[in-house]
């Protein structure tokens, strides 16, 4: 068990060293939310009415954090495809480590990188006119981490079944975008038509947005449901991925 955790940490450490050598991804994670937050926030301000007490930019702020985590997590998850493409995955697969610790190590590194990208957005909070206490900031980071954990595990599960990057654009269009737009990140859920609601409620990203919005804006939400759904989702996906890895020896 302890060996397994140490193995995961080793795998995560390598991924993190790698990713800090790739600066472009980091720059992208700063530019993307700035564009969305200020252009979208300003542009849509007139058309949307944010719930009482917030500007529209403030209202979508937690959603922007989730968006950055979403992109980063899926990206990190797919780093497995790079590893496969460049042969390093074989080096990992023939090492005397349990398949579960390999999957968890990959998830851990992806989550840490994604959380850092979430923190980059969070750092903009004074600019959108929010006041956060120290405790709120800490809770937001914890929230971001479990959100990152669940989405990264999803990314890894998809990547474990992909052999090339050709399908990556498809995943972006048919998974990441719907997950984001059907999450209530940009609009209050109670205002959408009834037929759309089931889609929103089976979307784990919805609970991620609710959780972070609850912490950051102190809107009303059920923290237990939110964290519960996110963590259970992550555990299910991680188990499936581990199973895929074990069964991978055709």
């Amino acid at each position, binding site marked *: 068990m302890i060996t397994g955790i140490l193995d995961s940490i080793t795998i995560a450490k390598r991924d993190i*060293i790698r990713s800090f050598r790739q600066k472009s991804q980091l720059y992208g994670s700063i530019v993307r939310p700035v564009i969305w937050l200020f252009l979208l926030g300003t542009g849509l301000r007139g058309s949307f009415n944010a719930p009482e007490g917030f500007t529209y930019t403030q209202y979508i702020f937690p959603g922007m954090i989730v968006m950055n985590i979403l992109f980063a997590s899926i990206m990190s998850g797919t780093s497995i495809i790079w590893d496969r493409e460049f042969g390093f995955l*074989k080096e990992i697969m023939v090492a005397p480590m349990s398949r579960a610790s390999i999957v968890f190590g990959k998830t851990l590194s992806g989550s840490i990188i994604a959380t850092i990208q979430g923190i980059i957005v969070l750092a903009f909070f004074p600019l959108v006119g929010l006041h956060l206490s120290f405790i709120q900031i800490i809770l937001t980071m914890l929230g971001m981490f479990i959100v990152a954990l669940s989405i990264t595990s999803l990314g890894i599960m998809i990547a474990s079944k992909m052999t090339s990057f050709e399908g990556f654009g498809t995943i972006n269009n048919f998974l990441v975008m719907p997950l984001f737009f059907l999450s209530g990140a940009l609009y209050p859920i109670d205002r959408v038509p009834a037929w759309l609601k089931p889609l929103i409620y089976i979307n784990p990203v919805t609970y991620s947005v609710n959780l972070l919005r609850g912490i950051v804006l102190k809107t009303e939400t059920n923290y237990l449901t939110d964290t519960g759904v996110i963590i259970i989702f992550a555990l299910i996906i991680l188990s499936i991925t581990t199973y895929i890895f074990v069964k991978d020896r055709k």
Partner: protein
Amino acid sequence: MNIIHVEKLKKSFGEIKAVKEVSFDVEEGEIFGLLGPNGAGKSTIIKILVTILKKDGGTATINNFDVEKEQNKVRESVGIIFQDPSLDERLTAWENLYFHSKFYHVPSREIKNRINNSLDLVDLSERKKEIVINFSGGMKRRLEIARGIIHTPKVLFLDEPTIGLDPQTRKYIWQYLVDLRDKQKLTMFLTTHYMEEAEICDRIAIMDHGNIIALDTPENLKRSIQNDIITLVTDNNIGFSILVKEKFNIETTFNNGTLEVPVSNGKTFLPKLFEIAGGRILSADIKKPSLEDVFIKLTGRKIREEEASKRDKLRDSVKRRRRT
């Protein structure tokens, strides 16, 4: 002691029987070579032995651990140089070795020493702080060799260790490997389709279409042919081959504008050929049999013939590009 034991090993991919009931043993400390054309089943056997591929039937043990039931024990016992590159090119040489040591649970206090020793062995100590992406193909290969031995495995598997490298680099790589055997008494299990490289093996198993068709020392295999080969250039190769058939009842073969005559003793037979030729022979040479000839005798064709297919050429050139 047998460090590798394989009995009636079987593996199919759909309809294709890649490995058909193969059995062999490898002794501790020997260099054992699997030789055969592409698609003979060599890599499939290696993949099964190092636990990344599931076998369909038979048994295989390494260091007395079953490759199916004791996967992690087997993984600890082997080092692997894959056919395709498998380094993390964004990490430095040192980091690649460091993470490998961690993956294989080398005790922390030993890691630094082991890394430095294996880098010394492949002459890469000077470059240890460099990012691997800048390395040449040969350097990457050497680094992979260093990595393969850092956790002191019992058996080092090398799947086509010199594929895609230029001839000079190939020579160096073999030098390092022979050095390694002499210094560390390590068992090596390698595959290659370069016949001349197989000569360094203590024993060779020749594979074709998923079967082992011969298994012996290189010397014995060559001796089994019992033939020298006289290579002739004549004014009319076809006509002369008919003449040789008539006079001596010997089947000759054509090769690149030359005529090859297999005989038991080249030195004494050559004058007889001159006698019947009456000035038609333009040049003559006597060749001792090579492993290539052994392969031709066993299968009736050359080992490289299949290799020259378009797809393989593409594959090789892709590999070469990745390695540079």
